[in-house]
């Protein structure tokens, strides 16, 4: 697991600033950007996977019962899944301030 940049000293960097761990961007949780979240009505979901295919952030996962839902760790709340879902079973709900 890569340390956050502010904790890394220059001596610890690989020569040429080579990054040796693939896919480590996952440590950064883009879900904190979100101002609206997609909520899937699981009864209306036909499990076609269209939302999954069109999500720019690969932030759609399958719930245990097989329907699709947003991975809120990474979902930025763009609403593409809600707009492209062929059955219209996804609604964007405003995130509340805590």
């Amino acid at each position, binding site marked *: 697991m890569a340390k956050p*940049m502010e904790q*890394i000293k220059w001596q610890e960097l690989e020569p040429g600033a080579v990054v040796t761990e693939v896919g480590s*961007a996952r440590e950064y949780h*883009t879900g904190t950007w979100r101002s609206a979240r997609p909520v899937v009505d699981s009864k209306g979901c036909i499990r076609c*996977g269209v939302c999954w295919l*069109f999500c720019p952030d690969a932030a759609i996962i399958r719930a245990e019962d097989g329907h699709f839902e947003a991975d809120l760790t990474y979902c930025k709340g763009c609403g*593409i899944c809600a707009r492209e879902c062929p059955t219209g079973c996804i609604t964007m709900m405003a995130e509340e301030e805590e």
Partner: protein
Amino acid sequence: MDRFSVFAPRLVEKAENFTSGHRACQGCAEALAVRLVMKALGRDTIVAMATGCMEIVSSPLPTTAWMVPWIHVAFENASAVVSGCEAGMKALMRKGKVPEKKITFVAMGGDGATADIGMGQISGVMERGHDMIYICYDNEAYMNTGIQRSSSTPYGASTTTSPAGKYSIGQHTQKKNLPQIAVAHNIPYVATACPSFPFDLMQKVKKASSIQGPAYIHILSVCPTGWRIPIDESIRYGRLAVDTGVFPLYEVVDGSYKMTYKPYRLRPVNDYLKGQGRFRHLTDKETGVIQDRVTKEYEGLLKRCEGR
């Protein structure tokens, strides 16, 4: 039964080779394009990328969104670097220093990197005949530095360096036709694609990877930030670009043209232009000029597809 398995997306590779956690804007179809391209290519791939949004959002030190060997080089030389990787690996395999296997070598850049800054090197790798793919993610401006016009910005678009106003309609030059420049190099494969048509896009990337020699893929990548559209409409605008004939989906294999998706009847170009903030200032007269040009170019392309 698992219903997901009866729908087309099930055919798509599940592994993500361009992962979550990248920092592209909300609703960025350029990031979606990269995600789909990487699904089609798989892990036996080496990528060099010019600077631009996709390089910046995917590689803030010390993290990376890439699951494959990936190198960021200067603005202008992604293609030249990949041609070196390809030649080097070929030599290493010949000498038995690395095991023989099929590796796909891919250079990627934005429209600024491709149409303007890297043009010379791209021409060089195509002419030298390297076994590689060059992919241009065309969001029609230098987006990463704040929406400056490139030679791929369409006529009439307002950008920060081609602002629309009392004396200007915005960009007053015509979009450079990069796929045609690639075709003029007589390379075995050239295609246009758009992530709003994900299966068409992935099929073309796979084809480019399987063909020996240089391949060029030009991907229209809708940028909600720079085009000034709502963030949930980037798939819709990509579809409109294709359905209006503004951005036809075609491929050219060994010089023969084929339309890979032909709208039954083209929608008026205004369906695509209206609603985009960058074209908001255009009058009917100017959209008429754009319509005439789109119709003429589309008909020219149809003729080439029919071998006329």
